[in-house]
């Protein structure tokens, strides 16, 4: 190659290297930031953010598990943090670069008490979204086992959530690993199956709104989106108890630009940024300072931020041992095959 062609090429390559040094790859749940969140960061930090979305923890985990996915910052649910740490996938958080961690309500969560690897982002739970025009308030999980709702309810298509609901109905722990308790939950779910129209996740939202369904076992965020569009709908946490989870920001060990990744996490933890996200997505932020900035109807929402007596009935998912996971998977397959 002739020299005068070669030199500009080299210059171009160097420039593109410099540009990619200011590039951050972020993989998050769908509908989990506000429209101006990413452009705001790009402007302020002169960086380019490549942002993509996933729909389930498994999708994320399948990608990042072998450690060469290309992503820098990702958002797993809390019960996947210990396995990810165990498998050496996460970079330790440098608290000196994350002053905004002080804004968190969850300063010492049980899955990572010192926030060594994760910054809690959003808190969620599963309860019942229902149509008061079609049924009475389902104060107990029993309402979803009532023959009167036959064909007009859905349960979540997620073994942890739905086994969890059956276990809670029997006043057991969500995370039970006892064969007898799981067998009981299985029998109850099989008994309930003829009443269940389908096992659906977010798709149930449209059907409740259309009046096809009386009620749906659904996540808080999805339910609040439905209520925002159809105000007659209601959401509640059944009295026997309910499941909670927390999605967290983590920096992968493979990250090529840890400074920028820390800047990004710290940016998300800013009260005004987090508040905009919480407002736009109608999700419960883990950021106490951000919550104070929210309009009262969101800040005081019983569904998002349950009162102490409701919150006491919530239980976080736990990371279970291998044998228990296998047993629970077989139980779930039995329910599905029945």
């Amino acid at each position, binding site marked *: 190659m002739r020299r005068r062609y070669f030199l500009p090429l080299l210059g171009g390559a160097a420039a593109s290297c410099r540009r990619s040094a200011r590039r951050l790859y972020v993989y998050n749940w769908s509908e989990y930031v506000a429209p101006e969140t990413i452009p705001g960061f790009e402007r302020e930090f002169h960086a380019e953010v490549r942002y993509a979305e996933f729909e*389930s923890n*498994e*999708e994320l*985990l*399948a990608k990042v*598990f072998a450690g060469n996915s290309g992503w820098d910052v990702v958002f797993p649910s809390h019960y996947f943090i*210990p*396995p990810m740490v*165990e*498998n050496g996938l996460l970079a330790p958080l440098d608290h000196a670069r994350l002053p905004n961690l002080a804004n968190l309500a969850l300063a010492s969560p049980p899955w990572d008490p010192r926030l060594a690897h994760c910054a809690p982002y959003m808190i969620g739970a599963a309860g019942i979204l229902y149509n008061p025009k079609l049924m009475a308030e389902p104060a107990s999980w029993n309402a979803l086992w009532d023959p009167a709702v036959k*064909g007009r309810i*859905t349960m979540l*298509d*997620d*073994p942890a959530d739905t086994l969890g609901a059956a276990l809670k109905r029997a006043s057991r722990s969500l995370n039970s690993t006892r064969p007898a308790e799981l067998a009981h939950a299985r029998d109850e779910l099989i008994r309930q*199956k003829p009443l*269940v*129209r*389908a*096992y*659906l996740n977010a798709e149930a939202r449209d*059907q409740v709104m*259309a*009046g*096809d369904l009386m009620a749906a076992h659904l996540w808080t965020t999805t339910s609040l989106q439905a209520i925002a569009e159809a105000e007659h709908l209601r959401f509640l946490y059944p009295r026997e108890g309910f499941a909670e989870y927390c999605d967290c920001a983590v920096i992968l060990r493979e990250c090529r630009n840890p400074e920028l990744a820390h800047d990004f996490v710290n940016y998300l933890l800013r009260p005004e940024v987090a508040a905009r996200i919480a407002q736009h997505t109608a999700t419960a932020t883990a950021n106490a300072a951000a919550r104070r900035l929210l309009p009262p109807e969101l800040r005081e929402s019983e569904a998002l931020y349950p009162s102490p007596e409701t919150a006491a009935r919530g239980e976080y998912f736990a*990371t279970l*041992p*291998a044998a228990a*996971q*296998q047993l629970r*998977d*077989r139980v779930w*397959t*039995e329910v*599905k*095959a029945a």
Partner: protein
Amino acid sequence: MKPRTWFLLPARTVMLLLFAVPMLIVAAYSLLTRGAYGGQGAPWTLANYARLLDPLYLEILLKSFWIAALATALCLLLGFPLALFIARARTRKTLWLALVTLPFWTSFLVRTYAWMFLLRDTGLINTILLGLGLISEPLPLLYNDAAVVLGLVYGYLPFTVLPIYAVLDRIGPELLEAAEDLGATPAQVVRRIVLPLARPGLLAGAVLVFVPCLGAYLTPDLMGGGKSILIGNVIQNQFTNARDWPFGAALSAVLMVIVMGLLLLVRRKTSEHGGLP
């Protein structure tokens, strides 16, 4: 190197690197033990295969075969006359052919959602039937096995039309005209001439439909509402939710062996009749 050996080289490279080696990795996984948090590691074991003897999984396997066979039969039944129509069309063959592939260009998910939109309680079909006063309660059209089969047939019908057409197109009109001149009824022409000649296309179509139906998991999930579980869902679940890659790998290995056996049987059957080399 002779041209014919050279012809095979690219395909061999692709299949070795991107199929055989990855499959060996999966085969190795099926003999490993699931790690505490997913992943896989020592010791080597046959326990994953032992778990397959559980009647629960055998029952699911049987049901999957039944659903896939039903969908395949329907696809052949519906696809053959359509392929015949295209092959015998005097004009615009390309257009008719393109009209078969056209629905394919839309995402599989959107096509499925289009049917869900038609079939749900407040969907178009129930709304029209209710409006006409033919029914008083919405019919439960969605979230059952019939809806799953419908979704599979809709999804894979072009897979039968294309190969059957490719073969039928080779049958010259002279052959059919000669048969008609000799006094054969249209039914006889189809049964005695077209069907035997179309055999390779029919078999290719059947294989193209049966196999993806057997491993399908999106359709049972979406059209079946997750209420019935096929073997594809069990496998998918092992690789995602259950994070039990060794068991998922063992399930896949067994499924592949069974289907390979069936395919060999089909090949033997056809070569007995002199159809395949």
